[in-house]
């Protein structure tokens, strides 16, 4: 294991995509826009030796969808590249061409949050039951389980 990456090092590589901030001793967060994600990931891979995609965290914060790509490498620093997607048009190009493991994560995000990854080779239902209705994405904040229907979900009094 080589030493941790410095903030400056990351800045020089990824500053052009957006703000770079040090979150923790071994965690650096970069905020960028969906159009640039491809290039940002590529530069992180080539310049910063990030060879391992830890996770694509996806969440719905009420106003927009956030996707955070966590990458790491032999240096042990986790580089988080974050993007936001508008709620009305959740679409972005796939990254599975440069990051093979992203294929699974994207498919999962598609199923649970309804974000469409254009260019994905096999974007199909993967987690939910085959009789789950289309256009219902349980992890969206505005998706409420309906009592009385098969998807009773979390009990009313618990909410």
């Amino acid at each position, binding site marked *: 294991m080589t030493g941790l990456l410095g903030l400056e090092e990351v800045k020089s590589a990824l500053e052009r995509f957006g703000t770079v901030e040090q979150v923790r001793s071994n965690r650096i967060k970069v905020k960028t826009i969906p159009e640039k994600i491809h290039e940002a990931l590529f530069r992180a891979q080539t310049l910063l030796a990030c060879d391992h995609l830890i996770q694509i965290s996806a969440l719905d914060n009420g106003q927009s969808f956030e996707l955070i790509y966590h990458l790491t490498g032999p240096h042990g620093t986790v580089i988080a590249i974050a993007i936001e997607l508008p709620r009305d048009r959740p679409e972005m190009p796939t990254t599975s061409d440069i990051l093979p493991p992203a294929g699974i994560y994207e498919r999962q995000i598609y199923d649970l949050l309804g974000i469409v990854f254009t260019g994905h080779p096999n974007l199909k239902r993967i987690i939910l039951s085959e009789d789950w209705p289309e256009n219902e994405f349980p992890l969206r904040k505005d998706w409420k389980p309906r009592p009385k229907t*098969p998807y009773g979900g*979390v009990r009313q009094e618990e909410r």
Partner: protein
Amino acid sequence: MGKITDSLSRRLANWARVNSPWISVFNTGSCNACDIEVIATLMPRFDVERFGILAKGSPRHADILIVTGPVTMKQESRLKRIWEQMPEPKYVIAMGACGASGGVFQGLYHVVGGVESVIPVDVFVAGCPPRPDEIINAVVACLKLMKEDLAQGGREWRQKPVQSPMPGTTTREPGEVPA
């Protein structure tokens, strides 16, 4: 003479049935802990072969179906099919809190509920997960039921009156297609 041989053969059959319960395990969405404990029950520490219990892969060979976990939407129809494949007389044991009611997963959006919301259950085992000795105890309880059933000539005597659905569990009629 006929009477004697008849009762003798029946006693022999009952003895055999009670002494040779074969089990088959089906996971309907459990966290694995129950499955692992069932396997641990077959292992040297607990060794249920002492009681003639054998684990069989094919539900066709099994007398007792052990169902672990809450029933997820996807496994519901599969559980039913497995149950239908078993030859009579067949018994079902629902493992753990999840098998009984859905447990910690009760009311989650992809969970139908406990095992009893899909197929009739004979014995429930408490615990999360139940210890292997509790599993053995459950099988023994199941054998007691078996004996009682044989004496009563069927399982009608212990059929419960229509029960109100458990709070929090979804009410989904068998075979109903979700909206």
